[in-house]
């Protein structure tokens, strides 16, 4: 029984939050890694584009809510997703046409493109605030919980409980579907394979008759889908605020690099490693150990490895250590 309690405790406080946070990071990191694989630069505007797409979803959701449209227990925002995807696709393609394409044409150094993406970041940053303002926006509706901590406790009779939110279920399910669809697309379709070919060997892809502009456009479209999904799921699970989305940039990058830049599998794994380590390393294990250890051996202190103040640092220390030992990340990333 105590063992079960310990397990439920860990699930409630570490595993479930880490899995849903990890899923959201995974979608964002996938976008970053795809851009890196195809366009070969680190896309610093990612967080802000995420906010832009989500802003589109939110405005549409409000309109739908006002019109009385609802999905029952599911959030209305899911219906609004296409609009957000169109919005972020529009801004990404606009940035590509007006900024990035030029550097592709002149074959600029990747670093120059990274700086250009910094410029885009500044612009989109301002744009988002023009569109929806700097405030926290709430757009979640529908049922909140699949089951609550209390319901779980009452049903199982355990001392500890765990709760699962609808938004967490949606997050995990949607992420699973999107990731599966992406992998199917990349590995099974002609266009997907041509993207991988382009990522592997750009010159040879050109020789094989693959149209680079088409590959780039498709990439931005996929990124638009990923980034809007990530932003919306995150917003549903927590809340929307432009500044927070900008802040998500670092963990998303950490995940992509940790997994191996340019490697989609790596991005997903990296995201879960980051999420799990942020929550796990700073978790205070006292209660958990109280359940597992015999009476009288329970620890005095909180048994916390690191204060939560430094949870952010965990992912970076991890990142640097991994890079030192395996410079291409956990999974082999792009080497050029």
């Amino acid at each position: 029984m105590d063992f079960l309690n310990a397990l439920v405790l860990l699930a409630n406080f570490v595993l479930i939050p880490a899995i849903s946070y990890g899923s959201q990071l995974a979608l964002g990191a996938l976008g970053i890694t795809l851009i890196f694989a195809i366009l070969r630069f680190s896309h610093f505007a990612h967080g802000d584009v995420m906010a832009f797409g989500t802003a589109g979803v939110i405005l549409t959701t409000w309109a739908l809510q006002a019109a009385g449209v609802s999905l029952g227990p599911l959030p209305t925002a899911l219906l609004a997703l296409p609009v957000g995807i169109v919005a972020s696709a529009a801004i990404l393609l606009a940035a590509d046409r007006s900024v990035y394409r030029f550097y592709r044409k002149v074959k600029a150094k990747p670093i120059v493109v990274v700086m250009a993406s910094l410029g885009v970041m500044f612009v989109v940053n301002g744009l988002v605030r023009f569109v929806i303002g700097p405030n926290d926006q709430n757009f979640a509706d529908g049922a909140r919980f699949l089951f609550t901590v209390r319901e779980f406790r009452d049903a199982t009779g355990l001392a500890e409980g765990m709760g699962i939110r609808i938004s967490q279920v949606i997050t995990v399910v949607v992420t699973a579907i999107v990731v599966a669809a992406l992998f199917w697309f990349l590995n099974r379709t002609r266009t997907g394979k041509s993207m991988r070919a382009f990522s592997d060997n750009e010159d040879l892809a050109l020789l094989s008759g693959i149209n680079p502009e088409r590959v780039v456009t498709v990439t931005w479209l996929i990124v638009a889908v990923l980034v809007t999904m990530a932003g919306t799921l995150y917003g549903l699970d927590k809340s929307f605020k432009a500044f927070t989305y900008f802040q998500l940039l670092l963990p998303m990058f950490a995940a992509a690099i940790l997994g191996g830049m340019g490697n989609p599998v790596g991005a997903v794994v990296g995201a879960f490693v980051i999420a799990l380590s942020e929550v796990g390393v700073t978790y205070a294990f006292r209660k958990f150990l109280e359940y597992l250890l015999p009476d009288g051996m329970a620890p005095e202190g909180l048994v916390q490895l690191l204060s939560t103040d430094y949870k952010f640092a965990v992912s970076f220390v991890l990142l640097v250590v991994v890079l030192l030992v395996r410079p291409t990340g956990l999974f082999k990333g792009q080497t050029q």
Partner: protein
Amino acid sequence: MFDAATDPVLIGEGMTGGYGAADILHNCTISVNRGEIAVIVGPNGAGKSTAMKAVFGMLNLRQGHVRLMGEDITALSPQARVSKGMGFVPQTHNIFPTMTVEENLEMGAFIREGDFRETLEQVYDLFPILRQKRRQAAGELSGGQRQQVAVGRALMTKPAVLMLDEPTAGVSPIVMDELFDRIIEIARTGVSILMVEQNARQALDIAHKGFVLVQGANRFTDTGQALLADPEVRRSFLGG
């Protein structure tokens, strides 16, 4: 009019040009007939690879023409030349390393409309080892096998001419012999082969025609056997 029996399938005529201001090629002519193997040899820096790239359109020509089956293609981009029937295997970076062997071949057929399974089977028949390893990532194969993937990929468009830039660079002599055997086999199916080779002796041995370039210009042009027999060619370029 173009006569497939006598006229060269591909000819770069009087090519002059280079990457920047300075010319590398000077009035250089390279050609290959149907089903034949043509080899470009010469000392280091003679412009062998440059001549091949010029034929393939990766270099701006100030003078000269390139004709494929009688059609002037001088102004076409490399991609357009691929769809016109030219296959090109670069010296390095000539495969998609993280993709499987089969995907590599599929990408070779990217511009082809319709079913290419038959060609795939032909490539597998030509290189049986690739059929065995078709689910494996190409980057994990040995050097010789990678070259086979690269050649196979170029064959997927069913080219009239297959151009190989130093296909045997960095492979062992045994693998080299095997590769040359395959190249002969390909030529027998009617595909013209144009290749640049470091291993001049072995290459000229299988070549119908050889071009010896020096400083971007033709020095000797003759059949492979004739060149091998020419004492001056032997002394200057084949190490005795």
